[in-house]
């Protein structure tokens, strides 16, 4: 077993805000009252993603997953590394929506859908391989992914987007 690299301790001074360590693995999780099939469909249907994913229209094009902004501009484009509907989807992430992030190497997003057997799905999103992409890491961290998962839950459970 290899020793993990040292991680800097959080800077803490009274109640001053902490600096999150964003370039290591980011993990986001939400429980959604829906079937795994419905959650999977919502991840790859541009008419649904545009209602919760920062307005991005996300779709599978051949062996790639591609997203466009409201004006048709290319936002992200990455190879699909693994696809096992409706359980697991792994794809590359490149921040083409941002001139600085666009120059960074591809990172990786893993979606895991676990049916909890009670009419709900535990959806986990892991964004990793961010070591060489600090700009992307900080642009997606915290609120970036959290609003996507919160918005997806609202859309699937109420049929209405969080923000119109």
């Amino acid at each position: 077993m290899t020793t993990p690299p040292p991680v800097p301790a959080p800077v803490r001074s009274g109640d001053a805000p902490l600096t999150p360590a964003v370039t290591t693995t980011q993990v986001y999780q939400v429980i959604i009252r829906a079937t795994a099939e419905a959650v999977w469909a919502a991840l790859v249907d541009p008419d649904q993603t545009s209602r919760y994913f920062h307005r991005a229209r996300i779709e599978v094009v051949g062996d790639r997953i591609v997203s466009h902004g409201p004006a048709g501009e290319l936002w992200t484009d990455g190879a699909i590394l693994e696809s096992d509907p409706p359980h697991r989807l792994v794809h590359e992430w490149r921040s083409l929506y941002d001139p600085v992030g666009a120059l960074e190497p591809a990172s990786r997003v893993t979606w895991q859908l676990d049916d909890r057997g009670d009419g709900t799905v535990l959806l986990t999103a892991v964004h990793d391989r961010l070591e060489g992409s600090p700009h992307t890491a900080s642009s997606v961290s915290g609120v970036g992914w959290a609003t996507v998962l919160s918005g997806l839950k609202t859309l699937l459970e109420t049929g209405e987007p969080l923000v119109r």
Partner: protein
Amino acid sequence: MEDDDAVFKALADPTRRLLLDTLLGRPGASLTELESAVAAEGVAMTRFGVMKHLKVLTEAGLVVTRRDGRRTLHHLNPVPIQIVHDRWITRFTEGPAQVLADLKHTLEDQP
């Protein structure tokens, strides 16, 4: 228990907030690392005590664990806090945000 109840209950304890603060700066921290972080803040607590607090945080969805070989890695999951935020804040801000977006379009579309 309602999801929101579990979140508020979990956040209503200074040691549990300290654990979340630690995970913000050290994603993937092990139990031993969290134990040291708590001790470094001058909080006297046994390993079992830290585990009990982590269990409350995990049940509220605020901490997610992953396995890496024999190690258990802990991550802060901000989504439950975002859901609480969206319930009371986002719904208020969409109005003004839309007004500004409309204004921008109106001004930019003028010849």
